[in-house]
C-alpha cells in the first residue's frame, strides 16, 4: 500500500511545473496587471498602489472597486500606441515571411545533404547562439553603417557610387530580425523535411509529376507543420522585439517594445507601460493559442 508520503511525492512531479509557472509567470503577471490599474504619481515608486496585500480579503475587495481603467482608455485614445501595435505586427509579419523565404531553402538543402554532413550543417545553424544576442546585433551596426563593411564592399566592387543608408531604417530592422530568428525557422523545418519519405516524391513522379510539381504537391503540404511552427516561433517574439529596433532601427521604426521601454524609463509612467504590456500579451495570446492548436493537431496526425 502506498504511504501518504509516496502518494504526495508522485503528485509532486505533476505539480512542480505548475508551481514553477505560478512563481515565475503568474505572480509577475499579476503584479504588472495590478500596476496597470494603478494611478501615476510623483512618488517612489512612481504610482499609487491600487491594491495593498496587507489590507486583507475585505480590504482587497474595496481596492478592486477602486481600480482605474483610465490607463487602458488613454491607450485607446492615443494613436501612438495603436500605430506601435500595428507597426510591430506588420514588421513581425514581414520579417517572418522573409525568414521563411530564406529559411525554407536552407532547411531543404540541409535535409537533402548527405547524411554525414547534416550534423555539421546543423551545428553551423546553432553556432551563432554561442555568442551573446546583443553583441551579434551590435555587430550588424558595424556592417550596415555608412562607412561599414557592406558599403565598403559594394563601393569597391563598383555596384554603388554613394554609400547606402541602411542603418537606422526599417530595412536594418528586417535584416536584424531575419538574421536573429533564422535558426528558429530552420530547425523545425529541417526536423520536418528530414523525416519526409523520399519515395513519396518518386511515387509522384511515377504518376506524372515533374520534380517541381512533386515538390508543390507533396513536400510543401507535408512540411506545413514545420512551416507553421517556424513562423510562430519567429513571429511571436518578433512582435515584442526591443533590442533590434532600438539598436538598428531609426526614428521612423515604431515598435511596441521600444514604446514600452520609453514609457517605462523615459516617461517613468509605470501604470501606462504596464497597460501597454498587458495589451501586448492579450494580442499575442491569439497566435500563441493558434500555434498550440496546430502543434496538437500535428501530434495527432503523427500518431
Amino acid at each position, binding site marked *: 500500500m502506498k504511504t501518504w508520503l509516496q502518494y504526495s511525492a508522485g503528485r509532486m512531479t505533476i505539480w512542480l511545473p505548475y508551481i514553477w509557472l505560478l512563481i515565475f509567470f503568474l505572480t509577475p503577471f499579476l503584479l504588472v496587471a495590478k500596476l496597470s490599474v494603478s494611478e501615476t504619481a510623483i512618488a517612489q515608486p512612481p504610482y499609487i498602489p491600487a491594491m495593498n496585500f496587507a489590507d486583507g480579503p475585505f480590504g482587497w475587495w474595496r481596492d478592486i472597486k477602486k481600480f482605474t481603467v483610465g490607463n487602458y482608455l488613454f491607450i485607446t485614445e492615443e494613436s501612438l500606441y495603436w500605430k506601435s501595435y500595428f507597426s510591430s505586427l506588420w514588421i513581425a509579419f514581414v520579417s517572418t515571411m522573409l525568414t521563411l523565404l530564406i529559411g525554407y531553402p536552407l532547411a531543404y538543402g540541409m535535409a537533402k545533404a548527405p547524411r554525414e554532413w547534416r550534423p555539421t550543417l546543423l551545428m553551423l545553424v546553432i553556432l551563432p547562439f554561442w555568442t551573446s544576442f546583443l553583441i551579434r546585433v551590435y555587430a550588424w551596426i558595424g556592417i550596415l553603417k555608412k562607412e561599414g563593411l557592406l558599403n565598403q564592399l559594394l563601393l569597391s566592387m563598383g555596384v554603388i557610387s554613394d554609400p547606402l543608408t541602411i542603418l537606422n531604417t526599417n530595412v536594418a530592422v528586417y535584416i536584424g530580425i531575419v538574421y536573429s530568428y533564422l535558426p528558429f525557422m530552420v530547425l523545425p523545418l529541417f526536423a520536418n523535411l528530414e523525416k519526409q519519405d523520399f519515395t513519396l516524391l518518386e*511515387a509522384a*513522379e*511515377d504518376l506524372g509529376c515533374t520534380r517541381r510539381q512533386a515538390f508543390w504537391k*507533396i513536400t510543401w503540404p507535408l512540411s506545413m507543420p514545420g512551416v507553421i511552427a517556424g513562423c510562430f516561433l519567429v513571429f511571436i517574439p518578433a512582435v515584442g522585439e526591443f533590442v533590434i529596433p532600438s539598436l538598428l532601427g531609426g526614428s521612423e521604426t515604431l515598435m511596441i517594445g521600444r514604446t514600452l521601454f520609453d514609457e517605462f524609463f523615459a516617461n517613468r509612467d509605470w501604470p501606462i507601460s504596464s497597460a501597454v504590456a498587458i495589451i501586448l500579451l492579450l494580442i499575442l495570446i491569439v497566435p500563441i493559442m493558434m500555434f498550440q492548436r496546430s502543434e496538437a493537431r500535428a501530434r495527432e496526425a503523427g500518431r
Partner: protein
Amino acid sequence: MNNSTVANRRTFQPWNDPKENPFVEFRNITKRYGDVTAVDNLSLSIYEREFFALLGPSGCGKTTLMRMLAGFETVSEGAVFLAGEDLASTPPYHRPVNMMFQSYALFPHMNVEKNIAFGLKQEGMPTGEITDRVAKMLALVKMEEFAKRKPNQLSGGQKQRVALARSLAKQPKLLLLDEPLGALDRKLREETQFELIDLQEQLGITFMIVTHDQEEAMTVADRIAVMDRGRLVQVDPPMAMYERPRSRYVADFLGNINLIEAKVQNVSKGFVRLETKDGNSLLVESEASVSSGDTVWFAARPEKLQIDLKKPKSGNLMSGEVWDIAYLGDLTIYKVKLDSGEYVKASVLNRAVSSDRPISWEDKVWLSCPNDAALVLTS
C-alpha cells in the same frame, strides 16, 4: 475466368515464338555505382501480357533493374526498350509505366480517393471521368467503403490495395511491383497472390514483379528470372525452373534440394552413370554435356526421394540412418545420415491419418529415386 483465357494461359508462351516482338527489352545493360557493379551486362526480353518475376537475394540488382524501367535509375551502359522505343531520354513522368512501391508510398495528406485520383488529375483528365475511374479502381480492389480514409487509418493489407489501385488507375501498359506483398502476413500474402493473378488476366497488362520470396514468384509468374550479383542465372517458367534448374545456385534458391558430389563414370544415350565418394553407383537420365571423369553433383529434391525400411528392388539406392524428423503436418521431413557421412533430406506426404510413426529415429533406412527424378548439375 472463362475457358478461353484458361486455354490461352495453357498455350501462352510468347518467349518460345520467334515471330513475337519483346515488349520490354534490356539490351546489354550495365549499372555501376562507383566501383560497385549492380547490374552486369544483362540482356532480357519480356513479352506483352506476361507476368514476369525477378527473383534473387537482396543486393542482386533486381530492384535496380526495375527502377531503370521506371526511370529512377540511369543506365551506365546499354539501352532499355519499351514497345520498341528507347527509354533513355524519357523522364519517369512521361513513361507509360507505373510502379507499386514496397513501402506503398501513399501520400499521407490525401485520402484514399485522392491518392488514386492523383495520377489522373496530373494528366488532366476531366473531373467526371476521374470520379468514374476512381470508383472503378476502388471496386477492383474492394475498397469502396474506405474511399474517405487517410492512409494512417488503414491496415497493411488495405494500404497495399490502395497502392495497387493507384498504380493501376492510369491504365499503364506495364505495371512494376516492387516486393508488393512483403509487409503482409503469410495468409494474406497467399490470398493476395491469387488476386494479383486474376487482376493481371482481367486487365491484360504486363506485370513485372520483384521479390525475394521464391514461393511468391512461383505462384504468380509466367516466367521467373533468377538473379545473382547483377547477372541473370536462369530465365524459365516456374515448373522448368524447379524441375530442371541449370545450376546448383538456382536449384538451391528455389525450394530444397539434396546435392551429392559424384564422379561421372560413363555417358550413354541420354543416361549418365555416377559414382559417389563412398562407391555408390547412380544412374540418371540427363542431357547434361559431361564426359567420364568429370566431377558433378547428383541433385534430387526431397519429395522425389522415397524412404523405406526394406531395401527396394530397383532405382538409385542409398542407405543411411534417420538422424532427425520434422513433422510439419502436411509433410514429414526425414533427415538421413548416409553411410558416407553426408546428410540428405526426404519428405513424405502424410496422406493417412495416423498417430504412430512407421519410421523413427535411428532406424536404418533406404532412400531411392527413379532415374528420371534426379538431375546432374555441373555448376
